[in-house]
């Protein structure tokens, strides 16, 4: 427990610094900073965060042109990497270090020091008792000594008394807990600086090699170079998914697994495995997680002469829980350029009034709704374009149609046709390398150990003094001191009394006198 000294007026720069430091490392400041940390975490759960959902952030800002940019400047969309959030936790950890280091010194000295001597009047302590034992004083002391040493109390013995102390692990645990918090922070920092994380979509039958260019999105820490990517590769052989068909939770996935063949390096032997939601594939410290899936309609486009100008499966991105998915097909080489915007629904609605919205995530009635465009899709402007978006500003819509597998749509301007031959599935993988996570885990385990020591171990002192009143009869005074939470000290004193009186354990007798 820390009692703050009265605060004196600061003197000079050094005096002020010392004053500031003392304030920062006070218990009250720690408390305030903990509250601040709790409050500062809240906005990140209310506003969408760039790290989790960048699209939602852009929508949010677009929908509210006045407040969006203001909140953005304030960092509400990147709360956990914002300067003010960092300020709170860095101050807290600074305070933590400033608090724990001196306490470690004090604790170290306390552990080396002998227990404090027996107070003059033991019976004045709040928890004390006096009783007679029918044995000589030295026998009583010997029994007490045995009791304490067998339970590993720290002792100071004199001719007529024993001072005993136990429970130093409480403070040790507390210090361990606080230091381990620093270790967790180090683990997080190492992960942030040296780790990387990328996402990639792989169609059935297609492969992936772990190089930067193959990722759809990739983010790494300051000290992660592309050189650190280990040279593994894999192909998605088959992706299996099944959905709940019962009334309850209809449409939620009941099976979700990817069969892959992988190689640790380009020349290595091929191995096969199954990646599921809770069982990633671990290669070289990196882990491959299955995080999502979707449909890739297979589309064939022919020109007016029937020559195939496009023949591939196209990744469509799911927009809702029933996998209504959107995607585009671009034929930049035709003249003028040809493009299609598509909506793929795995299960088309029974009545067409509901429009192109899927009613079940499984492929019960797969249909693609297409809108064909002709004109300039703006590829020459130089700016990189998303493969999921068609720039229609300089294009003209030439028609719309709905296709089921095997159906062909002859384009209304007579310039060719488009066919839906079927669909494949794709799976999205998150591939992550986090060299700090073991450090963080070690910190967490140590912190929990320290926490339990700190909360469950009771620090207490017991003094015992003996006085002979006649041959073979000794008066024993016994007293203890503990923090208020350790109200079981009376029970412990009773145990000691039983031990020195050489009585059978009388703890049960005590309950009888309980109110």
């Amino acid at each position, binding site marked *: 427990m820390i009692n703050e000294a009265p605060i004196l007026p600061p003197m000079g720069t050094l005096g002020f610094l010392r004053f500031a430091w003392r304030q920062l490392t006070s218990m009250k400041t720690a408390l305030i900073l903990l509250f601040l940390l709790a409050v500062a*975490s809240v906005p990140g759960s209310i506003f969408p965060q760039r790290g989790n959902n960048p699209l939602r952030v852009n929508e949010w800002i677009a929908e509210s042109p006045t407040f969006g940019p203001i909140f953005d400047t304030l960092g509400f969309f990147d709360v956990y990497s914002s300067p003010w959030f960092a300020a709170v936790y860095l101050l807290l950890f600074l305070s933590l270090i400033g608090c724990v280091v001196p306490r470690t010194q004090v604790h170290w000295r306390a552990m080396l020091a002998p227990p404090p001597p027996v107070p003059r009047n033991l019976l004045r302590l709040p928890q004390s008792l006096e009783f007679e034992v029918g044995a000589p004083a030295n026998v009583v002391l010997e029994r007490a000594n045995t009791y304490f040493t067998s339970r590993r109390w720290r002792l100071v013995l004199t001719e007529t008394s024993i001072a005993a102390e136990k429970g130093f692990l409480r403070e040790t645990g507390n210090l361990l807990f606080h230091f381990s918090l620093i270790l967790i922070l180090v683990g997080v920092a190492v992960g942030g600086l040296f780790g990387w994380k990328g996402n990639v979509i792989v169609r059935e039958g297609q492969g992936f090699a772990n190089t930067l260019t193959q990722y759809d999105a990739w983010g790494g820490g300051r000290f992660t170079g592309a050189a650190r990517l280990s040279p593994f590769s894999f192909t998605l052989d088959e992706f299996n998914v099944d959905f709940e068909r019962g009334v309850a939770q209809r*449409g939620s996935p009941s099976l979700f697994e990817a069969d892959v063949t992988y190689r640790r390096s380009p020349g290595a032997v091929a191995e096969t495995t199954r990646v*599921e939601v809770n069982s990633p594939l671990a290669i070289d410290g990196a882990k491959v*997680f299955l995080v999502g899936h979707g449909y890739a309609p297979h589309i064939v486009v022919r020109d007016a002469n029937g020559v195939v100008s496009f023949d591939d499966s196209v990744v469509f991105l799911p927009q809702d829980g029933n996998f209504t998915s959107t995607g585009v097909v671009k034929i930049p080489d035709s003249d003028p350029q040809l493009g299609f915007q598509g909506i793929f629904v795995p299960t088309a609605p029974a009545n067409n009034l509901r429009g192109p919205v899927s009613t079940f995530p499984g492929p019960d009635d797969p249909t693609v709704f297409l809108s064909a465009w002709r004109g300039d899709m703006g590829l020459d402007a130089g700016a990189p374009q998303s493969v999921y978006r068609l720039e229609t500003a300089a294009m003209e819509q030439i028609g719309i149609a709905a296709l089921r597998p095997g159906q062909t749509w002859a384009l209304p301007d007579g310039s060719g046709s488009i066919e839906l031959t079927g669909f494949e599935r794709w799976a999205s993988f998150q591939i992550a390398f986090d060299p700090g996570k073991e450090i963080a885990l070690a910190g967490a385990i140590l912190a929990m150990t320290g*926490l339990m020591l700190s909360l469950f171990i009771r620090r207490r002192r017991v003094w015992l003094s003996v006085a002979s009143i006649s041959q073979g009869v000794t008066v024993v005074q016994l007293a203890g001191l503990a923090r208020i*939470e350790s109200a079981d000290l009376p029970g412990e004193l009773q145990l000691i009394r039983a031990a020195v009186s050489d009585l059978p354990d009388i703890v049960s007798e005590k309950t009888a*006198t309980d109110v």
Partner: protein
Amino acid sequence: MSATALAGASNAAVYASMLTLTLAMVAFAISFASGRRRSGLTQSQVPVVAAVGSTAVLTKPTLDAPTEDDAGRKSANIGMSFTWLGFVLLLVGVVLRGVWAGRVPWGNMYEFSISAAVGILGAFLIVSLRRDVRWLGLFIVIPTLLTLGLAVTVLYTEAAQLVPALKSYWLVIHVAAAIICAGAFTLAAATASLSLVQARAERRGKVGVVKVPSAEKLRTLTYRILAFAFPLWTFAVVAGAIWAENAWGRYWGWDPKETWAFITWVIFAAYLHARSTVGWRGDRASWVAIAGWAAFIINYFGVNIFVNSLHSYSGV
């Protein structure tokens, strides 16, 4: 037993438990109302040492309210019996639900809620084995009934398979810890709130609510409960992080659910600090304990229902 029979039996057990708990609530309320003001309240913090012959008898200070009139005691006992019965019935309901679904009964909010209610009652009943906490019964049965009422009306869903992300033994560990914490946090919020009421009465020189221990004893009890629950909550959060690493490739992503788990943790850490900070030990620490419980509840209801999070399970 066929699936429909199992489903029916599980629901019947939950309803029977609610009925029993309602009776318990009435009994506790009667016991509460029948109290008279205690005169000359003696609540010794210090054990009484009485000399009996040559040895001394030491009596342990208790956390119990010392005196009670007979009628009140009788209905409090009836309340305890009904609470036990309600607990057993609810446990049966949860287990049957698990048998029906063929998995741990923690796949959706209905199942979490009835399990959390088991947690609240269980935490209370375990404490009641060690000390007399009949006075707390009313404040435990009411939140339990509210939880169950919400579960059977708003949150009810038929059993279904777990979504793949939930198929993990970390689910069992993580959720079991969280359910016990739900019970303990609720218990602590009840004792902390009562300590505020008592402290107010004591400041005005009144006895406070009869049958309820002094503010100081309530604070100690709150601390004991939270000293048990905080490490468990720490464990639940760490287990959740390990599970998240396994399922999503990162152990911490500031998902709203994770964020509120963190906020809950920080507030309870602040509570433990407040207990050792000058000027914060009394009512303020109690308020912090209540705030921690509120964060837990926000995480449970608010985030599951209103926020789009990785942890939002289908079927609410």
